């Protein structure tokens, strides 16, 4: 894992907020009554660091493990192996006291505006609930709920509404408000704008950026929309079948993708400019395989146009190809940093 070490070294000056090393999550799957217990290798050895105040984008097809990774940070699922540190605290070994504190430091906004809030609670109680859990007095929590409404630029009278009376954009802004009330350090954004219209998406993205700048928040955003990633995030982590295949600055990864999978992903992503239609783009053949019967070598090998003998036999290592840019591919093995 030389690549990861180099990457860590180059970031040593900045303060690290999220640090993952060798994180794995296997889900057991029983193969019939007498069959062997199979494993779904949803996340299979991911190492990643995110600095305080950074925005990291997680991209990949469905089944790439990006949502499982986020759910492990939220402690909704337990990693099978590996270490996840948030602001220096290993969340897998946290004491009860640390865990309570950690729960207030990591917040989440999910994709579906309709199910993000409890349909039977008013907006006000949805927003003040996290504060009440963490010991804020009810009256103070209510007062803060009023303050936070101005941060998301919504009128206070919406506090008395129920979720089904609001539009998707409004619901998503309230979900963000709720994520903010405990003054978290990290917010996980799981497809926060996928269900929204373009004009509303722009509102929500801008609001998230403003909040991030003013509160020095760290974001991890999961989305399938590479245009959103390009606009929104500082660094990008590309995942394929549970592995991190490429990681680096957004301009680097989207502008000069190295891994054949990233190249295919960028080629497939529609570009919002009809004059670029004639560009040579790479179309990935086939679909990602199963997470149960993974190929012995590189996972991407069956769809890769540049595969050779090595790819079939063993898994490639992370290779550093530029400042803070790593690729998990044999192609760059020979020529290391600064090619």
């Amino acid at each position, binding site marked *: 894992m030389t690549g990861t070490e180099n990457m860590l070294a180059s970031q040593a000056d900045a303060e690290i907020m999220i640090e993952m090393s060798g994180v794995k999550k296997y889900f057991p799957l029983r193969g019939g009554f007498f069959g062997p217990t199979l494993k779904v290798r949803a996340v299979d050895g991911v190492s990643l660091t995110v600095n305080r105040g950074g925005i990291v984008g997680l991209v990949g097809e469905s089944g790439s493990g990006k949502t499982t990774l986020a*759910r492990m940070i*939220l*402690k*909704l699922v337990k990693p099978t192996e590996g270490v996840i540190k948030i602001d220096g605290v290993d969340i897998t070994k946290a004491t009860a006291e640390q*865990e*309570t504190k950690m*729960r*207030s430091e*990591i*917040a*989440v906004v*999910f*994709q*579906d505006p309709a*199910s*993000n*809030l*409890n*349909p*039977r*609670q008013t907006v006000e109680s*949805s927003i003040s*609930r*996290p504060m009440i*859990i*963490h010991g804020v007095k009810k009256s103070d929590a209510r007062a803060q709920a009023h303050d936070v409404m101005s941060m998301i630029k919504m009128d206070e*009278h919406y506090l*008395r*509404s*129920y979720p*089904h*009376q609001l539009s998707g954009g409004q619901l998503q802004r309230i*979900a963000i408000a*709720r994520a903010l009330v*405990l003054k978290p350090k990290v917010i996980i954004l799981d497809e926060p704008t996928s269900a929204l219209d373009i004009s509303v998406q722009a509102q929500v993205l801008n609001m998230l950026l403003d909040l991030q700048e003013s509160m020095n928040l760290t974001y991890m955003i999961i989305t399938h929309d590479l245009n959103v990633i390009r606009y929104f995030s500082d660094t990008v982590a590309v995942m394929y079948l549970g592995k991190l295949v490429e990681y680096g600055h957004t301009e680097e990864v989207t502008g000069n993708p190295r891994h054949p999978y990233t190249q295919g992903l960028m080629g497939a992503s529609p570009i919002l400019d009809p004059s670029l239609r004639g560009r040579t783009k790479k179309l990935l053949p086939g679909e990602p395989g199963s997470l149960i019967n993974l190929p012995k070598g590189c996972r991407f090998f069956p769809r890769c146009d540049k595969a050779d003998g090595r790819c079939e036999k063993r898994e490639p290592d992370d290779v550093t190809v530029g400042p803070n840019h790593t690729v998990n591919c044999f192609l760059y093995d020979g020529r290391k940093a600064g090619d």
Partner: protein
Amino acid sequence: MNETPFMEFLVSARKNANFLVGAFIILSVVFVAIFAPVLAPYGYDTANKADRLQPPSAKYPFGTDDFGRDMLSKVIYGARITLQIALIGTFIQMFLGVTVGMVSGYFGGFIDKFLMYIADLAWCVPGIILALAVVTLLGKGLNNSIIAISLVNWTQFARIVRAKTMAIKNQAFIETGIAFGEKTPAIMLRYIFPNIVPALIVMISMQLPSTVISTTALSFLGLGSQPPSPDWGLALSNGMKYVSRGQWLSIFPGIAMVYTVFGFNLLGEGIRDLIDPHVKSY
């Protein structure tokens, strides 16, 4: 704009004929039950040996039974028993069903398998036979027959609550709550339970009439209320003995029974129409 769900319910309830008629019928039964001592001309167990098996007349509008008790008074007091059966029986079923269903649906795994196994067992024994067994074990009587019927019927609550719980527990707001540090009991009571309530209300309104009918059936078989209780089921069974001589003995309790069950059914239908679109949109 900022109407509570309950207000929204009332607004649409005003236009629902089933709900209105059903509510009127049930309210009238409740009224009769509450004011039974005022409304009934005689006590339900006041026997007047001289006036045995009298047909309906000005003195006894519904006639009298074989002990000379006024049938009108019996029917009026019987409303109390019927409502008692409906409320207590349905509450026991709901309590058992919600507890088992939520625990089963939320935790899943072995607990779920075990609890659903019990529910399956209770379900596959024919209801009336299980009820007979329970009554034999606990002894005859109204309360025991309510318990018996509840032990048979709770599984329907459990199944629906379990299915609802499983659907709700995967929604984003549950996970968000857990991520905020919400404890398991709070997740179940504050997040899941309120979202089951609409389905529960529909279920209750459908279980009320069947609980009344099953429990009355036990009384009819002589296993429930014992004489001189004004229970309609008991009165019906007693009337069977005099089918050729005194039809009024079974007709009036029968009509009261049909009226009440019909009311519960209409009310249930109305509530289901009113709540279901909401249930779907959540």
